């Protein structure tokens, strides 16, 4: 059904008239011009479209936009503050935890969700939590290292 929705995306409230059954992914990309979340499979299996909804990782491709009205939606574009990269982004850069980069924004958002819930995850916990994310280029080992580095950065410890 087409209706007025208030979306709070990266801290900014936006009123949009939308079909409320559309995917959050398509609204972010096609209506709001936020391309960080990617289409990979369209059914929630690859994680490339991951964003945070009230701080919790959600697959935006299988999330109907009407269900997240009024909730705090964070995309990768909302992570930087004062022109500085978020520690998770910084850690992914330093560990070179990507190749083609198509999965990276979703992976970073998944990692942000994990670190909010568990600031000091073990390698095994990282693997379990991010199990729903695919990296076809195969940078998994460096992704685990990046999340561990991000954890240290967020603690204020030396990476």
């Amino acid at each position, binding site marked *: 059904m087409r209706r007025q929705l208030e979306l709070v995306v990266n801290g900014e409230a936006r009123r949009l008239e939308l079909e409320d059954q559309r995917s959050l992914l*398509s609204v972010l*990309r*096609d209506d709001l011009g*936020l*391309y*960080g*979340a*990617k*289409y*990979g*499979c*369209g*059914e929630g*299996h*690859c994680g*490339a479209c991951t964003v945070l909804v009230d701080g919790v990782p959600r697959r935006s491709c299988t999330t109907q936009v009407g269900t997240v009205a009024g909730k705090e939606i964070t*995309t*990768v*574009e909302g*992570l*930087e503050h004062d022109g500085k*990269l978020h520690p998770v*982004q910084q850690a*992914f*850069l*330093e560990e*070179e935890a*990507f*190749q*083609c*980069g*198509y*999965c*990276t*924004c979703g992976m*970073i958002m998944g990692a942000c969700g994990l670190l909010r819930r568990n600031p000091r995850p073990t390698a*095994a916990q*990282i*693997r*379990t939590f*991010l*199990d*729903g*994310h*695919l*990296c*076809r*280029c*195969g*940078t*998994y*080992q*460096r*992704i*685990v290292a990046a999340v561990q580095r991000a954890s240290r950065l967020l603690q204020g410890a030396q990476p």
Partner: protein
Amino acid sequence: MANYAWPSRDEAQVIGKKTSRLDGVAKSTGTAKYTYDVNLKGQLIAKALGCPHAHCRITKIDTSPALRVPGVVHVEVLRDAGSEIEWQGEILAVVAAETEGAAAEGVKAIRVEYEPLDVFVKDYDLEAAERAGRTSSGGGRVQTEREPGPNDDEDKFADAEIERLLKASKYVVEGFYGIDPITHCCLEPHGSTVEFKDGKLLAYLSTQNVSGTDDGFARDLNLTASDVEVRCDYIGGGFGSKFAPDYWGVAAARISQKTGRPVKFMLDRDLELKLAGNRPSAYLKVRVGADENGVIQVWDSHHWGTGGATGGAVSQNVVPYVLVPKNYRRRVTNIKTNAAPARAWRAPNHPQACAISQTVIDDLARVMGKDSYDVFLANLVNATNGKADVYREQMRIAAELMGWKEKYHLHGKGPRNGSIVEGLGMALHTWGGAANNSSCTLRIRPDGSVESWCGTQDLGTGTRTVCAMVLAETFGLSPADVRVNIGSSKYPVSGASGGSTTVGGVSESHRRAAQDALEKLFALVAPKLEAQAEQLEAVGGRIRVKGAPQRSISWKEACALLGDMPLEVTQSYRSGTPSPLSSSQVAGVQMAHVAVDLETGVVRMKKFVAVQDQGLVINPKTCASQIYGGVCMGIAGALFEQRIMDPETGAFVNCELSDYRLPRLGDVGEIIVHLYEPDSERQRGVVGNGEPPVISPIAAISNAICNATGVRVPVAPYTPQRVLEALQRRA
């Protein structure tokens, strides 16, 4: 002309140093624009109607209901009534609409009637393929130390000689090995956003071949290639499947031409898997005979497989793989199936050839009751690529990193921990990786800024960063000081990124252009420093006299001497030209450590070691990344990935990511990468390494499973079901 060469390891300031990729920030902040992210004003969204049948004839196609769907603007019919369709997913028509939803509705509204035809997809079943008339010869070759006499029938002589050699062998192994087809499964599907305007086409295409796809569009649209610009700044995976505009890209361009609107057409996931690339299967029956040391003396094989509807099994030239005895007979049968044609899949032919022939060496070790390492070592005398010494040293390093000696046990003789047994396996590989054609235009402005243009592309391999590092090295600057422009067909022509040829090509063109430019700059600076141009060097942001570093001027001061005219140089490298900057032919050794659950058949990766030669390493950070990635893709092919087709209907039943299994973070175990770069290899110059690390994993993992269980699981992927079946056969 400059004397092209790389600096020595001691002199190098930038190359050989771990350098973070220049596009890292863009990729981690969402600002990197992939083809899928390109939306043009007023664009139509296109969706495809894929054929539901694997083999049929279209008797009727009616698109008029689609045109009545609100929002649908155009329907492009690609296959008319009467067309024979030979694989499921083949695109019959493309619907372009104002929205994605309308395009999807339009696709659903098209009415098609089909006449079913016979389907064959059982590529593993040679006899069934013969009965179905789906086979053709793929060639073969016989080589024996003893030559047939002038009156001998060659075939009969070969039969007799092979039998004689097998009989004379101390050990004989007879076996069946195989590897199923897999898809490329790029995370960013194939597709494009195109705009036809004023007789020209702008195509944002997800491609590995920016410089080579303009003419593909042009031919169909009756344009010249000069009327087309192809752009690709970022690409979400290609792996050998994205070299062409593809007929669906051309269809999008045609719709744009007809409607006067930009068109965005990206494949949905199921069509991506069905159509946009797969790797041929390979199944092999073989007999080998070895001497008392385990050195294979005779090899007799027949392999078959399919590249889909166009046939095409794995080439006979790479079987047996790398280690080729003096006496061999090999033959190939191509099988035509109702599946989309195969495309180049990272290291075409090699992973399959390695998987079906280096498993034989491991079985020889099993039969002999010997350590696989020793049997591989003994068979290095059969290495046909002149790399036996390199393999020997790489094996030593890999074994140390793996802890092979400490962990190894004979096949099936290791301790059992509950239902878990562990094992080690190894394999080795080779690849060409010679530099591709590449051109680079370089501009140094009087303000000291440096900019380059090259029609190459960065698949995530780090090409941008390599270009910047080579320029920075040459000019004594840092990579951040140079601006690299790639990803447009309007830039100087550079080859497709396939076959590990890019790093060599762009290193050649950028180093040559930079050395030429520097020579010209030195000629301007020399009088200022009261020196000869040949005495100068560019180091640390300054141009200085060699041996007298105090006599120097800054890079900026030097560039100011250009006056108001920038210095512009274009240099090219032609593939195959002997050069001190690049080379070809690499060697690699890999070892796997797995744990197998004898009750469930589940195989877990514990550790994987990859030792890889690639000549001179420009950027160890991105170079190692390629190897990690290659190993992961190899693990995927060994344990997870499999295109599953219904044997009766030919339907691709796992064409969504929910069912098409790929490894996840917890599935790959520990991976150790060792860049093998002694002076002997570094002095060969740059060689590509995108393909080699993906070759050995399947054989190494198969061998590790066999070592753990004492049983060969014949066909990859080694799924729990197949492991259990193999264990039951032994029982």
